[in-house]
């Protein structure tokens, strides 16, 4: 290098790799934009339609109150029950997926279950459950339970893998059996995380329960979808406002609860 010249260090193995990657990214993005084939005329029409849609949506119509409440109650019930079930099933699966506690084949199975649960969007899982057990909140509850295995168990497994081995060693040294070690050395370390994750998971389920109704799996999603289909945008807006309110409330509750668990 010439005297006086200096290059900032590069995170890539060789400086040109960085340039190539950036160019590739730019090309990828350009291709994406081009593929979209945005029709300016359509967009213009769309912008004018916004006015119409907003006109029909305001003011929000809360008249069909009972329908609204029914949907909300169903969503709450789905979210709560699936969280409870998800935790009961999720804890053993998380233990199975913790490399430091179980033998290899068990670990692989545990991780496999988690990965499978995470892959498919809850809508797709909902479709399958609706086919299996019929329309309604039961299918929705099962969907959310399966979905939570991918989230709750994954994070819990990570926590279990990160526990302080010294504490486990000490309890083992007293002659405690597997159960004693679990109860006195492992559980106290993971219990706060379990509670925190449960509350967080309930929060997520609440949000998910608002949409799976679109494919018939119960909750306020069905009500919402129907209102859109009937062009009852003012009712739609009412429902949306309620959804936002509930989810925000759920978040507030969850934040408070998590703070209490120190």
């Amino acid at each position, binding site marked *: 290098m010439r005297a006086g010249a200096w290059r900032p260090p590069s995170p890539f193995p060789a400086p040109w790799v960085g340039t190539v990657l950036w160019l590739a990214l730019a090309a990828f993005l350009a291709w994406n934009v081009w593929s979209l084939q945005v029709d300016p005329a359509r967009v213009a029409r769309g912008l004018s*339609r916004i006015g119409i849609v907003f006109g029909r949506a305001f003011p929000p119509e809360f008249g069909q109150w009972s329908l609204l409440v029914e949907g909300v109650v169903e969503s709450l019930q789905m979210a709560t029950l699936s969280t*409870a079930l998800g935790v009961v099933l999720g804890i053993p699966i998380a233990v199975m997926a913790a490399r430091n506690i179980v033998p290899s084949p068990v670990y692989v199975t545990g991780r496999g279950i988690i990965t499978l649960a995470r892959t498919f969007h809850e809508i797709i899982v909902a479709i399958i459950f609706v086919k*299996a057990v019929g329309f309604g909140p039961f299918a929705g509850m099962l969907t959310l339970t399966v979905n939570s295995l991918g989230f709750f168990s994954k994070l819990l497994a990570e926590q279990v893998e990160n526990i302080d081995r010294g504490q486990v060693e000490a309890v083992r040294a007293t002659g405690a059996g597997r159960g004693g070690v679990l109860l006195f050395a492992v559980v106290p370390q993971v219990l706060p995380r379990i509670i925190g994750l449960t509350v967080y998971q309930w929060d997520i389920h609440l949000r998910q329960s608002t949409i799976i109704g679109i494919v018939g799996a119960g909750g306020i999603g069905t009500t919402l979808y129907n209102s859109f289909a009937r062009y009852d945008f003012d009712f739609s807006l009412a429902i949306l406002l309620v959804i936002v309110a509930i989810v925000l409330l759920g978040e507030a509750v969850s934040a408070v609860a998590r703070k209490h668990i120190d």
Partner: protein
Amino acid sequence: MGELGQGSRLMAETFTTWRRFTPAQSALRFAGRLALVVAVAWSAAGMGIRWEFIADSPAQVADLFRRMFPPDWGFTGELVSPLVQTINIATLGTVAAVLLSVPVAFLAARNTTFNRGTYALGRVMMSVSRSVDSLIWALIFTIVVGPGSLAGALALAVRSIGFVSKLFAEGIEEIDRGQVEAVTATGAGRLAVLVFGIVPQIRPVFAGVCIYRWDINIRESTVLGIVGAGGIGFVLNNAILGLEWSRVGLILVVILGVVAVSEALSATVRKRVT
């Protein structure tokens, strides 16, 4: 009572019971647990379980899987275009969201916002974006801009703003004030402080969050088509409505593949970056 060996000179009184919680605490804990049980029972009551359906479900599921597999491999050719659309929607939605999230994040971060009003504004935008699921946004946008990928991309963009800006804001709030102070002390202007003091600290967070959300959006964009917002979800919905289960099987396999690839990519990049 057991002996403790010779030489113990204790005169203290000894107890034979010990409780971790006071009676009041125990009562509270019990009440809490009771409330939980009641909540779960109430939830279960609302499930409307039809036992005949459940009894039938293993047969139903087995039937379903038999029809889905082996998948209709021949249909793959027709999936290329929708798949491309799906990736487009996810990518563009993420990019738009990231660009828009930057100002929102700065507004919603306690240490970079201008005043309480702007802080509240930032927080509200974040919350609203996050409370409404992308599928609902997609419903809304298909009505506003018509069905197709544009609706999908917009839906993902709006939804992602909440997610991305929240993580950005957390990253901004966690920066080391000392580094910012040092750069400011050199006499640098606001922009320079941003570039040299703040941005380098957020950069790892930034890259990680972007690819994380892109990965999530790939998954989200696979279903947006069900409400008409483009992507492979549209083909999936049609196949389901038309009861073409072997095609459904194929689509699910393809989705699995795409999600697996995007996750691997995301994990690699995030490991490199942090």
